[in-house]
Every structure is written in C-alpha cells, then in structure tokens.
C-alpha cells in the first residue's frame, strides 16, 4: 500500500548524518532510517538518514505512535483512535553483539500484518514477542515479531479482566499482567500479577499503585508506580519482581514514563514536570534527580554513545544528559517554545538518535532538526510536510553477510535468539489522575 511519493524538500543536508557513508569498509555498511508519523494525518514517512532523502511513505489508518523493535527490523504504528496496530518492515536488521555487529539492508514495506482491537495504547516487546494492550477491551494480543514481518501472525490473547489503561508483558512462559483498580478501573492499575500460560496467577500480586510506564534495559524490566519501581529480573526463567521504593531524598512525585539505557543498564524516567530521574537498581543510591530549566517535553537515550541521553524542554531546548555524571552537560535551542499547557497529546517535539545525529521533530514548523551528537551543534534540517510528530530511528554499522555464499549452516531448528529488549517509543503522557 505504497503512497504516492511526497514532495519532501530537503533544505539542508547534514554533515552529521552524511558522515556515516553507506559503505564504510569492504564488508561493513552503515544505514539509518527515520520513521516519522504525522500528528493528525494517517501516514508514516520513511527517510534514509544517511543520504537525508525520503525513501517511502505509507498510508495507515490514523495518527500513530511509533515503536521500533530491538533489532530494528520492525516498526509498529499504534493507532489508538483507529483501533489498529500496523506492522512495517524497516528493511534494516541490525544485530549488535558487543564486540561486533551484523547488518542486513533491504527495502522498507508494510508487511500486511494488522492487529485490531479497541484502543491500543501500551505496546511492549520482550524477546521478539510483542503485546498490544487494548484499553477498551482490557485484553492484550500477543504475537511474534518474526510472524508480523512475514505478514501472518498467530495471536494469543491475555484477558486482564476489565477494560482499563493497562499493560501486558509476555515474559517467556509467563505473562506480566496489570491489575485493574478494583473500585474504579478508569483509574490507573494497582499492580502486576504473574500469570502462567493457562491464565493462573503465580505468586502474590506485586503492588504498584498508579502503574504507568514500563521499559527494559538489557535483562531488566521496570514498571513505574506511585511508590517506586517494580524491577523484574529473570530467575531461572521465571520473572522475579522486586519493589524499589523512591529514595527519601527525592521530592514528592512519581515517574510515569520510563526508557531503558542501551549499552549501559539503567532507566531514565520523568519525575514531576521539570525533572528527570536516572535509576540504577544495582546501586544503593539508585535514584539521581536532574532538574531541568523548564518543563520537560520528551526524552530519549543514545543507543550508540551509551553515556548520553537527551531531554527536550518546553523552551525549545535540547539538553545532553551525562548519565555517568548525572548532569546536563550541554544545551541547544532548536525550536520556538512548545508549552506543556494543554493536552498531553498536542503536537510537541519528539527526540530520537540516528547514527551520529540526534533528531528532533518540530511539528508546528513541519521539519526535523539534526544535531551532531559529538559536537552538539545543529547541522541541518529536513522538511517534512504536515505535522511530523512521533519518530523512531533504526540502523547501525555492521558487517554485511552474504547468505547465499558460505555462511549458511544446517541448523534444523526454531531458534529464538535472546536479545535484550528495549525500544524507543513516544508514549510520554503524564497521568495525574
């Protein structure tokens, strides 16, 4: 369902993005793609971030929040108001093994997979399995990414009991399921229960009042609660959940959005309107609060330079956050003011990282700002029609393998490789009720 190519103008192509050339070494390649959803139009634009050129546009059903898979092979458009999740193949599969990486490059496409249900919001990956939670049904539909890419999924349903703003995480042979508020399910959930595949609860409810926001970093998962975080570890294949209370030193507040570090194991969360919190559950002092100059709009971690994360504030500034030092190290004004007054889903900037560039959407100006991640200087802009909003990037630099010659191996089995499982997403709304 390819759309007619859009007349996208590239006002300035950027040294930062262009610095990773398409073919770096003999058998090594760099490729980055940006997927951008419009704030009000049913479309996803795809840009080649290395060349700074539009690659494709896909018609979908409604405005979407975008989610990328851990290995970057899939991007999903969660269209809450249109009751559907649409799968796209990015054309890039990047596999990072620490000491080396592999990359495969093809064309982006709609895969034909669509998961339907009433009002999908929270959408979570765990080891190649995805769960879309449909709030108005109180049901999660779980499927394998590999099947979604192939265009035909087998859906497993997990019923959380009643409609609510919930979440389900497929966790090996178990599911982590949000427990709706018992008196008023329109309130945020009160905890997480572990269920086996037959729907039987295993162990006690892990209490998590005002549960909202989840993320993964490496083999750790976390849910944000009013009282602290629930940290989920794998204990001999079973989920072990531990409550990490907010430190007494923190001011009154709670996290409602989390992202997981890449390359370093930590969580970054919102905490009150004008600060973020760095969370390292392995440390005695697990929480470090970072005050921002104004109210926070969005934040993202850098998957390449593990030391850094980025926060965008309503005064139009992008801030570089040093995760080790726990401080803002550089700030750069990119856009006009974007006030946090108004609805949480009003068009405001979103941040992602594509190779050497930090990319920020500027919905009201119809463009992307590109910032060199190393120098933290603005290097260019890409114009995108309408109101560019949700954005994710996929790609990397890795070795290209020729599967037809030599590397094939006769392993006759179905093998799920144990990748860790954080993902970029823009589901960044505060729930204060």
């Amino acid at each position, binding site marked *: 369902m390819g759309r007619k190519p859009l007349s996208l103008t590239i006002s300035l192509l950027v040294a930062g993005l262009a610095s990773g050339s398409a073919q770096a070494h003999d058998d090594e390649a760099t490729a980055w793609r940006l997927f951008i959803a419009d704030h009000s139009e049913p479309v996803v634009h795809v840009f080649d971030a290395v060349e700074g050129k539009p690659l494709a546009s896909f018609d979908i059903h409604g405005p979407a929040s975008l989610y990328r898979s851990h290995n970057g092979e899939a991007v999903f458009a969660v269209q809450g108001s249109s009751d559907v999740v649409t799968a796209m193949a990015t054309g890039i599969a990047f596999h990072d093994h620490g000491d080396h990486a592999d990359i495969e490059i093809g064309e982006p496409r709609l895969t034909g997979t669509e998961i339907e249900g009433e009002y999908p919001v929270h959408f979570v990956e765990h080891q190649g399995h995805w769960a879309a939670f449909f709030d108005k049904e109180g049901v999660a539909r779980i499927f394998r990414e590999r099947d979604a890419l192939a265009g035909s999924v087998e859906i497993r349903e997990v019923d959380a009991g009643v409609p609510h703003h919930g979440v389900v995480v497929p966790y090996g042979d178990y599911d982590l399921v949000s427990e709706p508020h018992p008196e008023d399910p329109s309130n945020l959930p009160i905890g997480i229960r572990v269920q086996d595949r037959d729907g039987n609860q295993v162990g006690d409810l892990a209490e998590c009042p005002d549960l909202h926001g989840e993320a993964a970093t490496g083999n750790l998962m976390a849910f944000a609660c009013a009282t602290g975080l629930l940290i989920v570890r794998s204990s001999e294949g079973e989920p072990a959940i531990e409550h990490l209370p907010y430190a007494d030193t923190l001011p009154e507040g709670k996290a409602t959005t989390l992202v997981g570090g890449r*390359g*370093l194991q930590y969580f970054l969360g919102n905490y009150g309107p004008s600060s973020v919190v760095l969370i390292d559950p392995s440390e005695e002092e697990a929480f470090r609060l970072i005050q921002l100059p104004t109210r926070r709009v969005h934040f993202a971690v850098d998957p390449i330079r593990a030391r850094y994360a980025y926060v965008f504030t309503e005064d139009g500034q992008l801030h570089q956050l040093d995760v080790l030092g726990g401080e803002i190290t550089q700030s750069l004004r990119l856009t006009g003011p974007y006030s946090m007054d108004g609805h949480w889903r009003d068009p405001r900037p979103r941040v992602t990282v594509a190779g050497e560039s930090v990319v920020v959407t500027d919905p009201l100006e119809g463009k992307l700002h590109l910032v060199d991640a190393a120098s933290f200087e603005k290097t260019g802009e890409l114009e995108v029609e309408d109101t560019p909003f949700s954005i994710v990037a996929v790609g990397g630099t890795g070795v290209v393998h020729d599967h037809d010659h030599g*590397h094939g191996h006769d392993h006759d089995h179905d093998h799920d490789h144990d990748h860790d499982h954080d993902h970029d997403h823009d589901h960044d709304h505060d729930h204060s009720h």
Partner: protein
Amino acid sequence: MSRARKLALVAGLTLLWLQLLFTVQAEERLKVVATFSIIGDFAQQVGGERIELHTIVGPNADAHVYEPRPADAMALARADVVLTNGLMFEGFLTRLIEASGTTGKTIALTEGADILRDPEGGHYHFYGDHAVFHEAPFDPHAWQSVANAKVYVENIASAFCEADENGCPLYTQNAIAYLAILDDLHKEVGQAIAAIPEGRRVAVVSHHAFRYFEDEYGVVFLAPQGLSTEAEATAADVASLIDGIREQRAAGVFAENISNPRLVEQIADEAGLTLGGTLYSDALSAPDGPASTYVELMRHNATTLSRVLASD
C-alpha cells in the same frame, strides 16, 4: 615553652604527620578495574591494600552476557589500570571503555599465555531462517590452566609496576609469593585428577569453559554450548551430546555456577546420570561459597571432579 606544651606540640605534629601520611597513602592507592571476579582475585593478591579494586562482573555472574552499569563506566573513568582477559571474552568491554572515556591503561592478561584455538573457530548467530557465522578463533578461558594463571599474575605485576613505580617492590614480592602458591596448586590439581581411573575421565558441563583444564590435566569435557554462553544450545547440539556421552562413557554431569542448571539436568536425565555438583567456570563463588578465591575454585573443581568421576 613549658615541657608540657612542647610535648603537646610534638604530639600534635606527630598526629598531623600521621594524618597526612594516611591521606597521601589513601590518595596514592592505584585504581584498578578488573573485568570479572577471577581476575579481580589475582589483582587483589598482587596489589593487596595498595590498590583500590572495582570488579565489573562479580561472583557467580556470567561475563559472556554481562550488561554493564553506569557505576562500571564511572569506575573505568577513574581507573589507572584496566585488567581484562581479552580474546573476545568480555563482549561488553569495547563499548563500556568508549562510554567511560577512560585514560587508564588496558591490559589483556592472556598476552603471553599458552592459548588454545577453538576447534570450531567461532559460533553462529541465528536471524530468522538463516545463520551467520562469527569467527572467534581462540578459546578465552585460559585461567582454567594454573600455568596460564601464572602468566596472568605476572602480567598484573608488570602492569602495576609500570603504573605505580613506588609500589613495585610490594607488587613483586606479593606476586612471587602467590606464584609459589599457584605452583603448589598446580601439583594438587594434577594429583586429584590422576587419582581418577583413566577410563572415567570424561565429564559433561554446560559450556566449553574447561578445555584448558582438559589440556593441562587430562579430563575430557563435553558440552552442549560452545565457548560462549551467548549462543544457545540447539536440539541438534543436545542430541549429539547425548550420543557423545554414551560413546565416551562420560561418568559425571556438572552444573556451572554461572548458568541455569536446567539444560544439564535434562541432559543428565536423558543420559541416565545424576548431577554431580557444581563446577566454577567463569566466576568465583560468593565470599561464603566454596570458591571465593581462584585457589579455592581450582581446588573445588578438582576435588569435585575427582569425587564424582572416580565413584561407581
């Protein structure tokens, strides 16, 4: 000045001098990062109280799949010396060093050791329906031979001497004493294995971490996983292993402290053997465990193998 005041002054100056000395000594401690617990023990044996040690991958943890924390990067940033195994053992290290911006000297302790080539020469990663082969030509688990452990210790002493000239006599003295202990350990392990009847020196573990032990002391190890725990064993690998157990008459199946024992339990069950205990492969035990130092680790592995394999 009265005698009492003189005495008070002298006492005060002495106290100040001691405080200064203590402060200087505290400041002068060599900041060392060791990538995993076994190397951490070697570093402590050589450096003693003169070093400030941060070990990244702690007891009972698996360096093959470790995910570093911000605190690890912070320790690296402060480090004077970074001790690594090398040979692609620490997959997390390159990115961690980059994130930390460390200027400390990074040493691969396997440099100069007697290194075995991996007979398979690498491992496969599986993406959907196809496999990709990654060359990893060397076996990194060199510490499983005490002779190689001595090379690690010598490399550590050299690195510490280079980074902290004043401490060199102490490091050298500690290293010499520890090398003598390792000589005794080598003999002890050899004797424990020699006590096993020759036809029974075949053991099963979960990953190939013991080939240096095999090469040095003569126990054959079979494993469903390769050199890294990152690449999972396949059904075909397990089936082939069961055949191998029968052909080679393996006499014992052992869990590893860094791995989930479920797979080897299943293998033991299918092969009609019982689990013979836990061997310590890539990490020490917790301080209250049976392998909290390298010497205890090797001793525990040798006696466990000897006890289980020698018994009918």
